[in-house]
């Protein structure tokens, strides 16, 4: 047992130790007195003068001895905390404003951090994530950077730069078990996925080498920890359980560890399936035979995303160069079916420690912007509390001076004041956590629902230990930040003048005043910057909303169905959709109904298209937006038909292949002429496919509101079948109320089919703007909070100043100054502070908003209206904050004030 633990044990029996010490020391003095009496009985009898002193001596000795068992630092801290709590109770107004300021500052930071941590900061929970790289194959602008399976297999086996290369594809699947079907996110992964990442399943195993060799022979899967808990109640007998995925029997062999959510950021797969089973899971008949080993599989466009683990000592550049060489050799070794050369991709190698982050592309910038903003808010909050503490320090000057005069060390006092600051920030931090939790919920509410069948942005807003650690750290830092300067200043008090209780008059305490005014100037400036930023984002959002989409989004319900999940043949699928259209069309309240593969303002789909006879310039982008639609699609969408006709029931596989193109395509390929009857060529050799143009429609927005419209081509569903389609229903009433009826019709046809992407087109439009909405809403909120904090700061400073100068103001009034003059005197001082802050803030905003230019739509970063609006709002609020103390000052009763 060490001395430390003996001492710790002593704390529990401190009363006993105390009693023993008392007795021991008393005995000591008694023995000493007895000895003295023996030696000098005469003096003792006369009453030894020292005798009476024994009790006070022994008390002193006892005190010193007892302290050996004490914990002086802890006891002082406890004392400081209790003292601090008492001070806070005695000034409830101050405490409330300070805690609220801190809660806002800390809460905003915690909420944004908890998101940023998961989105931008945290690495994959795999072994050595820093070795991971995203490997992509660049084949020119606008072309997918994914890789087909045979090429991937060659990259994996023949490269010399990776300790492992994995490939995967995200895909929605239908999982059924015990007769219950649900649509889940799946990740189709190469068999080496778990072993290369170094992820050990929580239960069961990962995939075995033989499960990665031959197509269709090993129907096994690993499920996520989340699905295991949610669907199977964490049953440990899950291993070996038969389930059905897209209608095929599979066996569960493992459960992924709880922290592991795949390697695509912001998405969370529920099941992991070996790539050898990909053809069975496909819902497209073509893909069922052509993904893995047919001769076509190598010349198809890619579908696997690659993640590699670089060998130690190999740089990203070396890996990229080696892989580009290898990819070139493979492309040359396997030309296209007609003998034409394949494109030799340039292989790019980038940091993959966070996995694939494409889904975060849109949210990254607004998040960084919000991070900067919440830091500014925290600065304002700190300035506020520092200001309040400075004000309080001057009211406590007498108390502090007395303590200094009675011998308290300056360090001891600073420690006391810092303890109070940290106590404040701790309470503020706790309140901030509560605020952060609700703010996080708000943020996640902005993110789009599953944007299409294949990808979904899943933002995790739980407050975990990392976030709690962050909050703790930020609370301590802010406590020191706002507490230190006031503590230093307060304890530098000139004892004599403080004890004399001087009233502050002009020129006195100039230094304190300057720091306090400076803090308010900074607060005003920062809130101007945040307000301008918010204003710009709001204007940008309004502009985005007013963009003409080219279609009518109101009163359209979309609902997706995938009959491939029930393994329908093409014929059965066509029949199903024909029946469904017929049933839905007959529902009351339905005006028109159609089908499409792409939902407008969704992810979109690109194809290569040119007009027949058009000679593209080298490197010319022939990309076009592409959609397969049923009859009446343009009527449902209210996209005007400019020429020709829509598709109808007679456009089938036995009639000529037809297409409808948009205005941009018609103008590009047949400028000044009618496009009707001309041919468009889709795809690239050898799979080119001519189609006759039967209609031209007005341009509309296909993928995003801000896109430059490019050529678009529509094909009739009856000629180009797909198993997964989205029903588009135009209603006469509120479209969302139609969902239940549509669901009933789908289930009447096939009860096992899950519906997905169920939303209105209006919702689709709104959620496509989620980053702008997120930024505009949060920035506005933060801007108003900043303004409020700055107003409180200004009010505090002015009210304090008026209070300190009551005496002086009283004299002025006694000498004949009018209330209005006093008001002006106070207002002028506050207005000067406000104006300096405003000007500095506008300059700062002018410099700062240039950084967000790329995020703004149709608003210049120096938009005068926004700047003027922010300035006006600030002036209005600060004038009010200034007016209240000024009015108070003007109502000073001179006789009372002078007597003070």
């Amino acid at each position, binding site marked *: *047992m060490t001395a430390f633990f003996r001492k710790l044990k002593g704390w529990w029996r401190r009363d006993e130790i105390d009693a023993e010490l008392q007795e021991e020391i008393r*005995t000591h003095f008694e023995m000493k007195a007895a000895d003295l009496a023996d030696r000098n009985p005469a003096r003792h009898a006369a009453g030894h003068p020292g005798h009476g002193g024994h009790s006070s001596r022994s008390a002193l000795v006892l005190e010193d001895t007892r302290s050996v068992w004490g914990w002086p630092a802890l006891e002082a801290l406890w004392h400081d905390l209790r003292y601090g709590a008492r001070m806070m109770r005695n000034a409830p107004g101050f405490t409330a404003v300070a805690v609220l300021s801190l809660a806002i500052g800390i809460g905003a930071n915690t909420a944004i951090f908890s998101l940023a941590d998961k989105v931008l900061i945290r690495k994959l929970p795999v072994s050595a994530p820093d070795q991971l790289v995203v490997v992509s194959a660049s084949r020119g602008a606008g072309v997918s950077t994914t890789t087909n399976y045979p090429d991937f297999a060659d990259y994996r086996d023949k490269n010399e730069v990776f300790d492992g290369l994995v490939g995967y594809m995200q895909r929605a699947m239908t999982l059924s078990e015990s007769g219950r079907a649900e649509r889940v996110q799946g990740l189709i992964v190469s068999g080496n996925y778990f072993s290369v990442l170094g992820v050990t399943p929580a239960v069961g195993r990962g995939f075995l080498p033989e499960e990665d060799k031959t197509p269709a022979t090993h129907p096994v899967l690993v499920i996520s920890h989340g699905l295991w808990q949610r669907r199977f109640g964490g049953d440990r007998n899950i291993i070996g359980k038969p389930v059905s995925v897209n209608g095929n029997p599979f066996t569960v062999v493992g459960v992924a560890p709880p922290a592991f959510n795949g390697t695509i950021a912001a998405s969370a797969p529920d099941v992991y399936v070996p790539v050898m089973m990909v053809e069975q899971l496909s819902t497209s008949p073509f893909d069922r035979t052509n993904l893995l080993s047919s001769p076509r599989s190598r010349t198809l466009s890619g579908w696997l995303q690659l993640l590699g683990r670089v060998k130690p000592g190999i740089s990203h550049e070396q890996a990229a160069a080696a892989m580009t060489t290898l990819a070139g050799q493979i492309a040359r070794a396997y030309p296209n079916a007609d003998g034409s050369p394949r494109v030799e991709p340039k292989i790019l190698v980038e940091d993959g420690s966070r996995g694939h982050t494409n889904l975060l592309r849109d949210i990254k910038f607004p998040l960084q912007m919000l991070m900067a903003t919440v830091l500014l808010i925290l600065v304002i909050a700190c300035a506020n509390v520092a200001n309040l503490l400075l004000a309080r320090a001057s009211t406590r000057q007498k108390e502090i001076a007395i303590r200094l005069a009675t011998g308290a060390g300056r360090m001891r006092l600073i420690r006391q004041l810092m303890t109070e600051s940290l106590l404040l920030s701790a309470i503020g931090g706790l309140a901030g956590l509560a605020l952060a939790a609700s703010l996080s919920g708000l943020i996640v509410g902005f993110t789009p629902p599953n944007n299409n069948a294949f990808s979904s942005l899943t933002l995790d807003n739980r407050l975990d230990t990392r976030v709690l650690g962050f909050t703790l750290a930020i609370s301590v830092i802010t406590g020191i930040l706002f507490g230190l300067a006031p503590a230093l200043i307060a304890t530098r008090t000139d004892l004599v003048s403080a004890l004399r209780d001087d009233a502050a008059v002009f020129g006195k305490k100039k230094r304190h005043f300057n720091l306090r005014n400076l803090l308010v100037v900074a607060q005003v400036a920062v809130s101007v910057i945040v307000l301008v930023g918010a204003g710009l984002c709001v204007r940008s959002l309004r502009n985005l909303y007013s963009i003409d989409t080219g279609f009518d989004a109101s009163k359209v319900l979309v609902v997706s169905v995938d009959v491939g999940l029930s393994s329908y043949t093409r014929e059965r699928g066509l029949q199903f959709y024909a029946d469904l259209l017929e049933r839905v069309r007959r529902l009351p309240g339905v005006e028109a109904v159609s089908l499409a593969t792409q939902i407008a303002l969704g992810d979109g789909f690109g194809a290569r298209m040119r007009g027949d006879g058009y000679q593209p310039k080298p490197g010319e982008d022939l990309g076009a937006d592409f959609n397969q639609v049923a009859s009446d699609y343009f009527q449902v969408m209210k996209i005007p038909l400019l020429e020709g006709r829509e598709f109808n029931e007679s456009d089938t596989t036995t009639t000529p292949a037809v297409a409808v193109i948009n205005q941009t395509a018609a103008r590009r390929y047949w400028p000044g002429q009618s496009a009707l009857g001309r041919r468009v060529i889709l795809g690239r050799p050898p799979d080119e496919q001519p189609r006759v143009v039967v209609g031209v429609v007005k341009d509309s927005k296909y993928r995003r509101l801000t896109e430059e419209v490019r050529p678009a081509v529509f094909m009739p569903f009856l000629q180009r079948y797909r198993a997964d389609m989205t029903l588009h229903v135009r209603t006469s009433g509120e479209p969302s109320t139609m969902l239940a009826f549509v669901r009933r019709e789908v289930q009447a046809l096939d009860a096992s089919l899950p519906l997905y992407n169920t939303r209105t087109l209006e919702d689709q439009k709104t959620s496509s703007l989620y980053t702008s909405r997120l930024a505009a809403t949060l920035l506005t909120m933060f801007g108003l909070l900043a303004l409020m904090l700055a107003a409180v700061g200004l009010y505090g400073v002015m009210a304090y100043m008026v209070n300190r100068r009551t005496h002086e103001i009283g004299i002025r009034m006694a000498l004949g100054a009018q209330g209005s003059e006093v008001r002006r005197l106070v207002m002028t001082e506050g207005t000067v502070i406000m104006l300096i802050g405003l000007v500095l803030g506008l300059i700062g905003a002018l410099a700062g908003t240039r950084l967000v230019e790329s995020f703004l739509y149709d608003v210049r970063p120096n938009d005068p209206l926004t700047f003027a609006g922010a300035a006006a709002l600030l002036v209005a609020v600060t004038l009010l904050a200034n007016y209240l103390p000024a009015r108070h000052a003007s109502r000073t009763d001179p006789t009372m004030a002078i007597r003070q």
Partner: protein
Amino acid sequence: MKTDIPSGTLYMLVLKTLARLGPMHGYGIALYIEQTTGEVLQVEEGTLYPALQRMLIKAWVRAEWRTTENKRRARYYTLTPAGRKQLAAEMRDFDRAMTAIRQVIEPA
């Protein structure tokens, strides 16, 4: 004339006293040191008792309540093996320091 105990030597003096006398109470220790040094060294209670408590915490001594010859209850301290080791170490250090000091202050 009375002298304060040279700093750093109190532990050694107390430990040595206990080594000589066996179990002894605080007053006895103080008395012994004063009498042995012809009352040159004065042991203050305010120094002795904190030192004894520290030595208890460090387990150099053990304490138990016993009755004195005069039928008083007093706390007796006993040297522990750790205390004995500490005493040896302190005496070694003290000797070395004294030798060094002598070399400085005595003419060669």
